[in-house]
């Protein structure tokens, strides 16, 4: 029945505790390292491997390893290794910024819907529902087809169609948390609505939102690859999906032309997924010891 036994316990905050759980997971750290390596490859790699991905450097369909081209050449004789190195930049950039766009829209809509309720919620959730029903890829195809296929328009198109899941999660977290006593206590001690939304409720709702946003990064990368595969990519930059799309007529002769870019997408998204799982374990209070 003793009350205040001074437990020798360091006073870590939830953020510190979460990070330490995260870095204890091998798969999460592996994922993070792969992701960092791929980013370095995309942003710094071209300095060390300056071959132009658009230039026809050798005979078409030169198999991997031959003639000094590690991953071979494509149907126009362009260097596939260079395409993969340069494609990483686009994939990573579009993946993260599109996910960021989605997260901002989703959190904004979800938090206001969940916090204010009533007709605000009704309208915002109708909009969300609408975006959930819309076949996202087709809608993005229409946007890109009509507004041109620049990196910016592709990013915005992906961001604009993928936020519904974030909005749903944010709203349900807000609905749950806003009824908790500490929110009422904060209100009773004079906090304004905006303080409550952004400083009191949102930090407590962050865990599932962060995990979902991490998953969105991977989804955005495959989404971009899908658009590029269909021929809707920025003609001025290389994209992994576009490499697969343009070579797919020749798979019988040169399987490697689609295999390698596919592996690049696969490994990148896999790494993100491992990081996402690690975040989920680290942020899930059920698994954390009290």
């Amino acid at each position: 029945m003793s009350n205040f036994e001074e437990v020798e316990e360091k006073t870590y905050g939830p953020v510190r505790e979460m990070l330490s759980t995260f870095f204890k997971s091998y798969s999460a750290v592996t994922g993070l390292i792969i992701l960092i390596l791929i980013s370095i490859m995309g942003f710094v790699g071209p300095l060390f491997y300056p071959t132009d991905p658009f230039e026809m450097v050798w005979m078409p369909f030169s198999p991997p390893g031959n003639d000094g081209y590690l991953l071979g050449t494509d149907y126009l004789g362009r260097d596939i290794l260079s395409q993969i190195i340069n494609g990483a930049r686009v994939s990573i950039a579009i993946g993260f910024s599109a996910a960021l766009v989605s997260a901002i829209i989703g959190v904004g809509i979800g938090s206001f819907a969940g916090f204010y309720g009533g007709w605000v919620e009704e309208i915002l959730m109708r909009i969300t529902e609408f975006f959930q029903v819309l076949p996202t890829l087709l809608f993005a195809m229409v946007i890109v087809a009509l507004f041109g296929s620049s990196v910016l328009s592709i990013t915005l198109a992906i961001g604009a169609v993928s936020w519904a899941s974030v909005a749903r999660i944010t709203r349900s977290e807000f609905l749950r948390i806003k009824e908790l006593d500490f929110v009422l206590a904060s209100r009773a001690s004079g906090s304004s609505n905006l303080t409550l939304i952004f400083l009191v409720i949102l930090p407590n709702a962050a865990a599932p939102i962060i995990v979902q946003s991490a998953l969105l990064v991977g989804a955005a990368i495959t989404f971009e690859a899908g658009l590029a595969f269909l021929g809707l990519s920025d003609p001025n930059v290389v994209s992994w999906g576009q490499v697969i799309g343009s070579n797919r007529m020749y798979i019988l002769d040169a399987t490697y032309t689609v295999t390698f870019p596919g592996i690049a997408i696969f490994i990148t998204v896999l790494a993100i997924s491992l990081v996402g799982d690690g975040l989920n374990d680290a942020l899930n209070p059920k698994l954390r010891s009290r």
Partner: protein
Amino acid sequence: MEDLLEIKNLNIQARTRAGVLNVVNDLSFSIKKGETLGVVGESGCGKSVTALSVMNLLPEGVLSVSSGDIIFDDVTITQLPENKLENIRGNEISMIFQEPMTSLNPLFTVGDQVSEVIKRHKGLNKDKSWVKAVELLDAVKIANPEKRAFDYPFQLSGGQRQRVMIAVALACQPKILIADEPTTALDVTIQAEILALINMLKEETGTAVMFITHDMAVVAQMADRVVVMYPGKKVEEGTVHEIFSNPQHDYTKALLAAVPKLGEMASKKYPEPMKLVGEGSSKKPQPIVGTEKPLLKVNNLVTHYPVKGGVFRRTVARVHAVEDVSFTIMKGKTLSLVGESGCGKSTVGRSLIRLVEPTSGKVDLDGQDILSLAPKDMREARSNIQMVFQDPFSSLNPQRPLFDQVAEPLRNYGTLRGKDLEERIEVLFDRVKLPRSFMRRYPHQLSGGQRQRIAIARALALNPKLIIADEAVSALDVSVQAQVLNLMMELQVDLGLSFLFISHDMAVVERVSHDVGVMYLGRLVEIGPRPSIFRNPQHPYTQDLLKAVPIADPNQRKSERDLNFKPLPSPIHDLSHDPGPSEYKEVEKNHFVLTTDCGY
């Protein structure tokens, strides 16, 4: 009498991240045929785990019996294979659980769930076991059982669900019934009904009962013999009279001292702190007198919630949560609002500081009309009234250190900064008797009682005149509850605070209040000085409520074997409903009783 169930040197281990932990240590006791054994202890003492181990239903991979024997009817069931055990479960040993809300499968009818167990053990066909199930529902006093059998659990109230659970448990006339906190989640009148039902069925069938609870009052009412547990161990065992009149172990003594007993304040005019074991026992508790100056006057408070529906989300009905309630709180005194869940007592508290917007009425705090204030002025006024909430696990923000949480109101009002702020927080931590080193900690590192102290410190930060304590001690273990109650009473004396104490617990209310208001279905049915209310309850609801409260004294057992209180009507009415005003008559000095209809 011979032993029906014998637990011998039982050890149960828990596998946690930190390693293997012994949650039950070398536990031995036995239950004789037809007797009721109470197993009592506070949370985490291993009582529920012991019950599950008898059924061999410990969660796999988390908890396991590491050594010891459980012998039932001369068979060592700890060594039986699973399929043999299945023949015993629900048939010879059965169990009811704490949470009636989640213990029934939501997707099957209750008739289905009762008849299932009959089909399993008695080999009856579908139709015959359904007929038997309806009979059982009738036996547990569910009205209109033929029809109710087709209901899904969500269509029944908490009390009715627990009756269904009892029907399931007793379907095969088991030799022993294990009841694990069966009434903890229920309101006091429903608790009384369920306890009476268990006693009645026990007498009819001769079943032995292992009754697990944290509530000393319930043990005093139910048990023949008692086993007291304190973290993983049995500390004392004896007949219920021995335990209550002559406890041997220090823990049992401390526990009994911490339990408020209904009626023990009858001779005292004012509330006074509890005399706890080991807490400055030389000092005699001083009565808290308070003043006669009114602080808060509430007149004709009404709060309705709209119920929206239809395509256009129009208001189609209203929840009449608070209906024409008036009361006054004096400076330095405590007014308690008591009633069962859904009676509107919490809504009253929230309406006062406009966390919920009242529909009409007048709230006067020291000459200031709170309900007519503009939002900006309301913010100022809120600093005079602060709240302490029920659930110690959700009343603190898990993301922020305790210093920030206590500082939050001070920062919001910008009253103090920098060094001054720090000093003020230190004083507050001293005030609620928490070490200053706790300021850098986070809520998850605290126990329930410590969290509630933080919540109180936060409420005190702005030097309020009134604190609304909404079930502030209900979720705490009884020994911690007593400490927090004493802290609140001490603060009341030192700071001249007034409390609006909202609670369902009559014994606690009797201990802490100067005045008591009893609520039913949004109405205040009776209000007056505490001694007068408890000595001379006038309203039929107050009388029933007091009749239902179990007393922590085996010499004052309730004799009713067949209680059936009136079920709570719905507070939802259509828009045309006009509830009419509350009118009172004064039966004693300042003791008022509702004369108009309240639905009871």
